[in-house]
C-alpha cells in the first residue's frame, strides 16, 4: 500500500538549527523542501565539498593497490558515525600525502615526456661531431640548421655559394648549410623554394650524441623516481578504508549543510518545510523534542496541486518485490501500489520460464548465500530476495515439468547420457514426480495452452484489481464499465470459444452449450457496456457510441496481451533444451574406450558441465527476471497502475562505503 504523507513545517531557533538537523538526519524521516532562494555561497559547504572531491581522488588513486575485500565480505562494512568521524583527521593526512605523490607523479611524467621528445628530435643528428653550441653565426659566416628533403640535395649542390653537410641518408635529411654573411639573404630566398624546415638545437652541452646520452641518464633517473613514487602510493593502499570512512563522514556533513540553503530564515529563527510519512510523524516530533522545547511543529495533509513523494509499505514477504516495481516506476501518490498483487504472479511466472529443479536449487542457494554474506541493501538486496522466491518457484515448476539440470525423462532414455544421468532420471521416476504434470517437449501445445491460461488469469486479475481500487474510491461507473466489462469480454470469449481454440491446439475439449452460451452472452454484455458507456463523459450520443466502438477495438490489445505469454513457454523450452544440449555435448567426452582417455574425458566432462550449466542458469535467470518484469509492467500494470510517483529522499545518512549503525 502507499503510505500517506504529511506536509510538516517546523519553526525553531537558529541556535538549535545544527543540532535539530543532525537529529533529523539520524532519524532520516523528513524530506526537506526548498522554500528559499539562496544564492549566497556558503564557505563551509564549499570547504566540505572540496574535501569530498579530494578524498574521492585519493580513493581513486590508491584503489588499485588496496587489499581486495574478501569474496564473502558484506557490500558495506558496519561503522558507527563516531567511528567514521574519527577517521577524518587520519584520512586528511593520508590524502595530503597522496595528493603530494600524485603531484610528483604527474610532474615527473611530464618531465619524462619532454626528455623523450628532445631525445627523439636529436636522434638523426648523432653523426654531427661538433658541439651543438659551436654552430652559431660569426661576423663572416652564416649557418642554416634544418631538415631538407633528400630530393632537393642536387639543387643545394647547384648553389656554389653554399657549403652543405648532411647527417643521414633518409628521405628527410638533417642538414647544416654555411655561407658568407653577404649571401645569407639569397640563401633564405632559395630555401623557400625547396622543401626545408628550420631546426633549433636544444640548449644542451656537447655533441648531439653526448646530449642523447645525458637525456638517457635523465630518463632513467626519472623512471627510478617514478618507481619510488609508485611504491609510496602502493604503501597507501592500506589507507583506503580510512579514506572511504572519511568520505562518507564528509558526505553526511555535506548533505546536512546543503539543506541549510533550503530553509527560510528570520532574524532569530529558521523555518523548515518538508514531507514525512504519516506513520513517522511522532518519531520526528520526538526527535525534535529531544533537542529543544522551543519549537513549533505542524503537520497537515497534502493539498490539491501538491505532489507528495510516493512511498510504499508492505509486509516482509512482499517488500523485496517493491524493487521490481521501482525498476518500472513508483506509483503516483494517492493511487494504488501494485506490489502485493504482482508478487504471487511474479513468483509463479518466473519459475515457469526456467522450470528446472536443479537450476531452481542453484538460484535459491546462490541468493541465500549472497544475502547472508554480502548483506545487500536497496536494489540489489531486493532483487536477490526476489531471485530466492523465483528459485523456489523454479524448483516447483521443474518438478511439474520433469527437468533436473536439463535431464528429462525423454532425454535420459533417447540420448545416451552415461550412467549417472539415467540414474538421476530413474530416481525421480521412482519417486513418481518426473514429470509430475507434463513434459513440455512431448506436449508443447498443452504447455502453450497452460501458459496462455495463466496469462488470461493474470490479465483478468489486473482488471479486477483496477475495479476494486475504483470501487474503493467510489467511482463505481469506472469500475464496472472500464474494468469489469473487460473481465466479462475476456473470460466470456475464452470460455465461449474454448472448444474451437482447444481444437486448433490439437486437444479438442468439448464444453456443453450450457456453459459456452452464457459465456458468449456475458461477453456480449461486456461489449455492450463498453460501447454504451466508454464515452460516458460525452454528451452527444453519436460521439458517445463512436468512442465506445473505438474502445471495443481494445479487444485486439487484450488478444496481443494474451499471446505475449507465449514467451513463458518459449523461454522455458529454451532453458530446458540448452541444458539438454550441454549434457549431450559433455556426454560425448566420456565416450572413449581407452581407460586413460575415459578418465581425462570424465574430468573434462565434469568441469564443462559445471561451467556450462552455470552459464545457462545465469543467462536464463536474467532473461526470466526481465521478461517476467515486462509481463508485470505491460500486461498486468497496464490494466490499473498509474506510474510516475516521485522518490522519497529524506535527509539521512546516504553513504557509499559504510553502513552507519548506532
Amino acid at each position, binding site marked *: 500500500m502507499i503510505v500517506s504523507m504529511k506536509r510538516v513545517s517546523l519553526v525553531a531557533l537558529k541556535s538549535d538549527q545544527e543540532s535539530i538537523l543532525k537529529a533529523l538526519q539520524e532519524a532520516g524521516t523528513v524530506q526537506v523542501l526548498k522554500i528559499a532562494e539562496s544564492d549566497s555561497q556558503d564557505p563551509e559547504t564549499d570547504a566540505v565539498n572540496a574535501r569530498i572531491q579530494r578524498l574521492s581522488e585519493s580513493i581513486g588513486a590508491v584503489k588499485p593497490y588496496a587489499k581486495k575485500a574478501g569474496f564473502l565480505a558484506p557490500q558495506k562494512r558496519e561503522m558507527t558515525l563516531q567511528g567514521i568521524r574519527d577517521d577524518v583527521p587520519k584520512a586528511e593526512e593520508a590524502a595530503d600525502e597522496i595528493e603530494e605523490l600524485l603531484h610528483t607523479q604527474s610532474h615527473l611524467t611530464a618531465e619524462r615526456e619532454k626528455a623523450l621528445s628532445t631525445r627523439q628530435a636529436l636522434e638523426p643528428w648523432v653523426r654531427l661531431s661538433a658541439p651543438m653550441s659551436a654552430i652559431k653565426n660569426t661576423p663572416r659566416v652564416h649557418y642554416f640548421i634544418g631538415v631538407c628533403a633528400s630530393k632537393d640535395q642536387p639543387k643545394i649542390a647547384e648553389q656554389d655559394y653554399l657549403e652543405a653537410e648532411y647527417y643521414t641518408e633518409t628521405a628527410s635529411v638533417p642538414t647544416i648549410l654555411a655561407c658568407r654573411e653577404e649571401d645569407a639573404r639569397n640563401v633564405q630566398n632559395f630555401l623557400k623554394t625547396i622543401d626545408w624546415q628550420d631546426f633549433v638545437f636544444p640548449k644542451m652541452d656537447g655533441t648531439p650524441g653526448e646530449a642523447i646520452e645525458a637525456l638517457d641518464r635523465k630518463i632513467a633517473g626519472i623512471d627510478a623516481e617514478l618507481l619510488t613514487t609508485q611504491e609510496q602510493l602502493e604503501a597507501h593502499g592500506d589507507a583506503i578504508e580510512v579514506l572511504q570512512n572519511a568520505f562518507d563522514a564528509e558526505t553526511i556533513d555535506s548533505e546536512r549543510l546543503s539543506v541549510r540553503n533550503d530553509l527560510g530564515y528570520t532574524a532569530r529563527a529558521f523555518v523548515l518545510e518538508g514531507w514525512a510519512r504519516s506513520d513517522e510523524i511522532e518519531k520526528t516530533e520526538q526527535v525534535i523534542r529531544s533537542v529543544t522545547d522551543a519549537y513549533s511543529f505542524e503537520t497537515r495533509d497534502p493539498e490539491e496541486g501538491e505532489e507528495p513523494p510516493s512511498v510504499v509499505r508492505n509486509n516482509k514477504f512482499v517488500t523485496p518485490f517493491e524493487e521490481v516495481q*521501482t*525498476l*518500472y516506476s513508483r506509483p503516483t501518490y494517492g493511487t494504488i501500489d501494485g506490489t502485493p498483487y504482482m508478487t504471487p504472479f511474479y513468483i509463479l511466472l518466473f519459475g515457469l520460464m526456467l522450470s528446472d529443479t536443479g537450476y531452481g536449487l542453484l538460484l535459491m542457494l546462490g541468493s541465500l548465500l549472497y544475502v547472508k554474506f554480502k548483506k545487500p541493501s536497496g*536494489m540489489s538486496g531486493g532483487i536477490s530476495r526476489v531471485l530466492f522466491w523465483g528459485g523456489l518457484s523454479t524448483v516447483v515448476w521443474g518438478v511439474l515439468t520433469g527437468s533436473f539440470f536439463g535431464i528429462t525423462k525423454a532425454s535420459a532414455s533417447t540420448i545416451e547420457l552415461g550412467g549417472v544421468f539415467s540414474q538421476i532420471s530413474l530416481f525421480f521416476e521412482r519417486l513418481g514426480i518426473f514429470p509430475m504434470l507434463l513434459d513440455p*517437449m512431448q506436449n*508443447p*501445445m498443452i504447455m*502453450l495452452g497452460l501458459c496462455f491460461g495463466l496469462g488470461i488469469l493474470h490479465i483478468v486479475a489486473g482488471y479486477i484489481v483496477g475495479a476494486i481500487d475504483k470501487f474503493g474510491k467510489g467511482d463505481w461507473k469506472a469500475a464496472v464499465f472500464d474494468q469489469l466489462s473487460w473481465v466479462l469480454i475476456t473470460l466470456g470469449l475464452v470460455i465461449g470459444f474454448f472448444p474451437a481454440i482447444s481444437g486448433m491446439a490439437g486437444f479438442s475439449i468439448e464444453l456443453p452449450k450450457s456453459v459456452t452460451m452464457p459465456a458468449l452472452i456475458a461477453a456480449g454484455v461486456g461489449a455492450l457496456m463498453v460501447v454504451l458507456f466508454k464515452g460516458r463523459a460525452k454528451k452527444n450520443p453519436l460521439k458517445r457510441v463512436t468512442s465506445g466502438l473505438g474502445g471495443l477495438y481494445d479487444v485486439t490489445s487484450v488478444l496481443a496481451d494474451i*499471446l*505475449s505469454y*507465449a*514467451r513463458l*513457454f*518459449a*523461454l522455458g*523450452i*529454451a532453458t530446458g*533444451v*540448452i541444458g539438454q*544440449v550441454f549434457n549431450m555435448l559433455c556426454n560425448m567426452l566420456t565416450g572413449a574406450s581407452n581407460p586413460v582417455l575415459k578418465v581425462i574425458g570424465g574430468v573434462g566432462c565434469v568441469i564443462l558441465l559445471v561451467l556450462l550449466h552455470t552459464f545457462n542458469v545465469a*543467462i536464463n535467470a*536474467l*532473461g526470466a527476471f*526481465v*521478461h517476467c*518484469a*515486462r509481463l508485470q*509492467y505491460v500486461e498486468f500494470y497496464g490494466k490499473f497502475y498509474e506510474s510516475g510517483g516521485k522518490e522519497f529522499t529524506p535527509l539521512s545518512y546516504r553513504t557509499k562505503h559504510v553502513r552507519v549503525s548506532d
Partner: protein
Amino acid sequence: MNWGAIWATAGAVIAALLAGIGSAIGVGITGQASAGVVSENPDLSGKCLLLQLLPGTQGIYGLLIAIVIMSNSGLMGDATKLAALQANTALGIRFFLASLPIAFGGLISAIYQGKVAVSGINMVAKKPTESGKGMVMAIMVETYAVLSLLISFLLVFGIM
C-alpha cells in the same frame, strides 16, 4: 543427391548462422558502448554487462533451433529418421522453412536490440540508477525473437 538431408542441414545452418550473426553484431556494438562508459566509471561495469548480454540470447535461440532440427531430422545419427528424411525431399524443405522465423527474426531483432541496449548503456552513464528501465526497453525488442523462436520450435516439432 539426397535433397531431404541437404535441406534439413541448410535449415540448421541458417538458424544458427543468421541468429548468431545478429547476436554478434548486437553484443559487439553494446560492448563498444560499455567499454566507453566503463572507462569513465568502472563501477558501472556490472550494469553495462547485463545490458550487453541481452542481445546475446538470439544466438542461443538460433543454436537451439539448429540442434532441435538436427536431432529431430536424424542428422545427429538416428538412422531411421535419417532414412525417412533422405527418402522425402519435402520433409527436408519443411525443416528448412521452419528455421526461417528464428533465422531472420533473430538476426534483425538482435541488431535492433543491440541498438536499444546501446542507448540504455548511455542512459546508465548519465543515470546509473535507471539501468532497469534500459533493460526493460531492450527486452521489448527481444519479445519478437522469442515469438520467432516459438514458431520455429512448434514447426520443427510438428514435423516428426
